[in-house]
């Protein structure tokens, strides 16, 4: 199998709003990144891929089958939605277990598999806490755990790094990478190119519902490097963290727009993401979440689409 998913001229509109516009792309084996700014149509494409939306036009194939209302195929998929959709009263363990039992896993095995999956994503310590007490990064990891706990053939991950703290990002990327090395396929959306670059060279760029480029990551990297990359950190000590980060040569600017927010602009995002966990660990400052506003990516897309 060389193609995991294939879209040919797929359009989807919500009333007068166009979600996807004659989207054509193929997603190969291993890990493929779907990169685009917010509102580009990434989530719409994923909902189409998992059969929860029906395309108005075009054809879509996942693992060689039409995914719309294809219930048996769901056993082969692991889906991690972007937004928080957990029943807050369930513990992480109960949440993953309940979803595994929906797959038809026996209760005892569901419990074992849930424990193992939560361990893989680094949530063992919080497995028995209600998920409403989880930070955003922990919720992302719990959702990733439920997506991969039943050993699907394909993982579809909608912004799995969104809001996750630096340590959680490392853990999530490591888990995805291990899953792919073990023969699984991953289609993962993000608007932060530098993060996906760590685990794959295959990307599809989406903008305004259209696939505007696909293939090797290096060409697009060169374009993006011309624009300073913004990173927004949530921390209770933004000034102390700014002091520590100011030592990085590639950091262009540091702002404290709110009492618990630090906004950084860097010309070398890959180096920044590599060094950040170490600095956070050394300074022992808490970083609750990390996000990259997609303004730099937006600029590149404006350039690409003319």
């Amino acid at each position, binding site marked *: 199998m060389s193609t995991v998913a294939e879209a040919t001229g797929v359009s989807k509109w*919500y009333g007068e709003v166009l979600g996807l516009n004659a989207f054509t792309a193929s997603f190969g084996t291993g890990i493929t990144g779907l990169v685009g700014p917010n509102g580009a149509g990434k*989530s719409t494409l994923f*909902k189409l891929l*998992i*059969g*929860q*939306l*029906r395309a108005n036009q075009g054809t879509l194939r996942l693992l060689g089958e039409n995914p719309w209302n294809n*219930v*048996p195929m*769901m*056993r082969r*998929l692991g*889906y991690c*939605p*972007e*937004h*928080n*959709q*957990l*029943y807050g*009263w*369930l513990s992480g363990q*109960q949440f993953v277990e*309940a*979803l595994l*039992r*929906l*797959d*038809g*896993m*026996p209760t005892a*095995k569901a419990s074992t*598999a849930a424990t193992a999956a939560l*361990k*893989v994503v*680094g949530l063992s310590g919080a497995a028995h806490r209600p998920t409403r007490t989880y930070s955003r990064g922990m919720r992302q990891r719990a959702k990733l755990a*439920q997506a*991969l706990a*039943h*050993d699907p053939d394909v993982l579809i991950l*909608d912004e799995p790094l969104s809001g996750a703290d630096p*340590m959680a990002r*490392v*853990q999530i990327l*490591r*888990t995805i990478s*291990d*899953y792919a090395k*073990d*023969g*699984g396929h991953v289609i993962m959306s993000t608007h932060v190119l530098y993060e996906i670059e760590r685990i794959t060279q295959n990307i599809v760029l989406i903008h305004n519902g259209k696939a505007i480029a696909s293939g090797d990551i290096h060409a697009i990297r060169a374009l993006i490097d011309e624009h300073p990359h913004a990173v927004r950190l949530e921390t209770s000590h933004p000034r102390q963290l700014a002091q520590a980060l100011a030592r990085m040569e590639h950091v262009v600017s540091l702002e404290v727009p709110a009492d618990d927010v630090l906004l950084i602009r860097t010309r070398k995002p890959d180096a920044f993401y590599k060094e950040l*966990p*170490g600095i956070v*660990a*050394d300074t022992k400052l808490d970083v609750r979440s990390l996000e990259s506003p997609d303004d730099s990516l937006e600029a590149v897309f404006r350039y690409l689409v003319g």
Partner: protein
Amino acid sequence: MSISLPTYTRREIPLLGRRHRLRAIIVTGLRREFKRPAAIVTTGLGVGLVLVTSIVIVLFRGLFIPGQPLDLSFFIVPASNQAILFFVTLMASVVGSGLIAEDLNSAALTLYLSRPITHADYLIAKAAILSPLIAMIAVLPLVLTPFVAALLGLFSWTVALEAMGLAVLLGFLFTAFYTSVTLLLSSLTRRKSYAAAGVFAVTFGLSIPATILSLSIGNPAFLYLSPWEDYLAVAQAAFGASARQLDWPWALAILLAATIVASFVTYLRMKAVEVVSG
């Protein structure tokens, strides 16, 4: 600094069938309801009050309903206890109104449907969460009342057993009606409060105007609009009590038709729901 992380390895796990998957939704749903004080209080008060009032009526039958014959027709009295209507409505609005609406609102439906679960499975499981809770109010007290009456020697076991059987049938009819209508209302909105208001509207918004219209115009046919009056007409016929203004076959047909149509429309509605979030 070195970080050691656990690694991921794929496993092969045998999977169970549809019944098992349905049970997973039901268990999760019931576990949630029995953690919610509102659901616990409604269940406790509903079952308790309906049962206590029914047994008090049996014990003090001479005082409350002088002249009521002590045969099967006596059990129309507990079956027409208005507390049943009130607590069934309350239970449907407290528990049932959010069953689908909250899943739509939180987009938990996305997670359900990303598993090998059909829309029909999802709806059956949701009905299986709500119906036992409604049945605890609509069925349980009506079954326990003749049982207690027979234990106290007030009625023969033959009459009591017949009354218990009829109570099960009537209670299930009422439970099925409220379950399907509540799930329909819940599937139409993302706001639980709207669905809850809809449940009250179905009960009181239909019953009160139907009664007023039938009295003011003098045409009892308006009472067919009220699910409670339809239920009472069927119950009167079942227990062999004196006939009311409504024909029981029509009343039964209306309740059954409303139940089936509501279930079917809910199914179509859920099939048509495209899970849009974010």
